[in-house]
């Protein structure tokens, strides 16, 4: 940054001698993030899990829906994890390959998490930025609506919706999307309130930029740091919500599956000594959540200067 300023030849020379390397905000943040070992480990774990969810199926020798008839009836004796017969994680109670199902479940859980977070980011940020920027009565009404929606027990309403409109992944996305943006809008609004009195916003108003353009081009980009942090922490919450509903048997429908549904099935079978049916989905579930929390924490330390 300082290299561009020519405030005197001697100073420029001195600066050039020391060769000061300019650091952008994002580069600075990246360095802080990289120094946080837990966050980097979480990021590596996340990349591995994402690769597993989207390309793990290539290694599977069975499809997620195929029933291995040789296993059926004696799953407890023969259905354990084994490389030899191609069931790396064993089979489930019907003789379906648990490896393929875990890949599928992880993929659906990640998708739900990302879609929920994406809705939260888009809707919540815009809503909060608009409420905060316009202020006054608009702000009052918009935030009252958020207050009211937040007071509703959404888990119950979501289940009510799933029962009434039928259980489908689309419905789950809609339902989760309805809840997820509320917190984000509050965060975005709070940040917008401090941003809108800054000089650069004043300058844009002075040259006659329209309010919506100011919000989209000048306010929202400045919210990004905070929004990314909370979005990362939101993904695991969304995954937990989906798994919660699938655990109750009200979420994704067979033959599709999610980590919550797999954990539920494994938990129902564990007294028959088929512990692998619980352990493998549980492992991926817990590692995913841990990874997201660590990455989110690391991002918060890196991007949110207040907390350092």
């Amino acid at each position, binding site marked *: 940054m300082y290299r561009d300023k020519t405030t005197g030849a001697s100073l420029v020379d001195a600066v050039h001698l020391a060769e000061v390397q300019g650091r952008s905000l994002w580069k600075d943040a990246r360095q802080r993030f990289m120094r946080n070992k837990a966050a980097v480990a979480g990021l590596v774990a996340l990349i591995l899990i994402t690769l597993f969810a989207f390309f793990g199926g290539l290694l599977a020798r069975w499809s997620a829906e195929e029933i291995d008839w040789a296993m059926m009836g004696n799953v407890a004796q023969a259905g354990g994890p084994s490389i030899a017969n191609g069931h790396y994680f064993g089979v489930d109670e019907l003789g379906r390959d648990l490896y393929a199902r875990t890949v599928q479940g992880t993929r659906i859980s990640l998708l739900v998490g990302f879609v929920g977070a994406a809705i939260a980011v888009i809707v919540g940020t815009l809503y909060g930025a608009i409420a905060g920027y316009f202020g006054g009565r608009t702000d009052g009404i918009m935030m*009252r609506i958020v*207050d*009211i929606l937040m*007071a*509703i*027990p959404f*888990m*119950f*309403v979501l*289940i*009510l*919706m*799933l*029962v*009434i*409109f039928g259980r489908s992944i689309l419905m789950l996305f809609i339902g989760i999307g309805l809840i997820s943006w509320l917190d984000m809008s509050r965060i975005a609004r709070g940040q917008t309130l401090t941003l809108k009195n800054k000089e650069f916003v004043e300058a844009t108003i002075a040259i006659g930029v329209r309010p919506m353009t100011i919000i989209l081009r000048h306010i929202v980009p400045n919210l990004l740091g905070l929004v990314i942090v909370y979005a990362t922490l939101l993904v*695991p919450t969304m995954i*937990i919500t989906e*798994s*919660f509903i699938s*655990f*109750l*048997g*009200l979420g994704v429908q067979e033959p599709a599956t999610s980590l*919550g549904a797999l*954990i*539920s099935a*494994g*938990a129902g079978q*564990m*007294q028959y000594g088929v*512990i692998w049916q*619980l352990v493998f989905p*549980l492992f991926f*579930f*817990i590692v995913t*959540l*841990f990874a997201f*929390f660590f990455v989110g924490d690391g991002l918060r330390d890196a991007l949110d200067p207040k907390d350092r």
Partner: protein
Amino acid sequence: MFNFVLKRLAIAVPTILILIVLSFMLMFAAPGGPFNSERPLPPQVLANLEARYGLDQPYWKQMYDYVVNMVTRFDFGPSFQYRDRTVTDVIMQGFPVTLTYGFWSFVVAVIVGVSLGVVAAIKHNTWLDYLAVGISVGAQVLPNFVMAPILVLVFTLWLGWLPGGGWQGGQWQYLILPVIALSTSYMASIARITRSSMLEVLNAGFIRTARAKGLPTWRIILGHALKPAMLPVLSYLGPAFVLMITGSVVIDVYFSTGGIGQFFVNSAFSRDYAVIMGITILVGVLTIVFNLLVDVLYAWIDPKIRY
């Protein structure tokens, strides 16, 4: 104070109404009626049934009757699934169970969570602190539907110490696992909030003064630091209570405790809209009332707070 309570009530009442309208709208939007079955009923029978349940009335009238009956007689209408019982019967049967272990989970979460947080804050940056933080991070990624099977696996299947389900009128053996499973993640959150707010309070000037006067540490903590440090925790307790009631759905289903969640999920499977709606509205009203209480309590304890 009075104005403040009034203002909060002015938000709470419309919220409850919106919840009821929302549930009704969802129900009216549902394809098919509750009496649509494989074999179509004779039109006269269907008409009689609909008259019995008030389904032949216009929507606004149904909604109005529902609210009036609910408020005046605590009557949520008849259940569609259990033809001889009302929704109120179902709720009265399940709710005491949910309340019992919900209450104990709440007590456990608060006591253990606060102690853990306070210890972590006092022993900041020692192994005790790291242990407490580790426990709370670990508990965060173990939501109740993960805790429940793990607990049953260890304590019922491997060790054989505790029963893995059932209720038996709420004997203590049957209470332990549901309470642990339900309280863990809230305990973790409470511990985390307590720790950070305690750390902040311990750096405050009045604590330094107390130390300078030579007060023993335990008196500083209990007499001076704890009360201001509890304020953020208190504001978490309202939502926590709600989440516990919601989370109890899993506990009810997994441990077959016969609480309200079990009826809720059963009704969800058998499309018994009346019960689902009754429970949704009841939990919603409880949520709103509880949040209101916490807010009022908060304003009473800390007069600086004004919304």
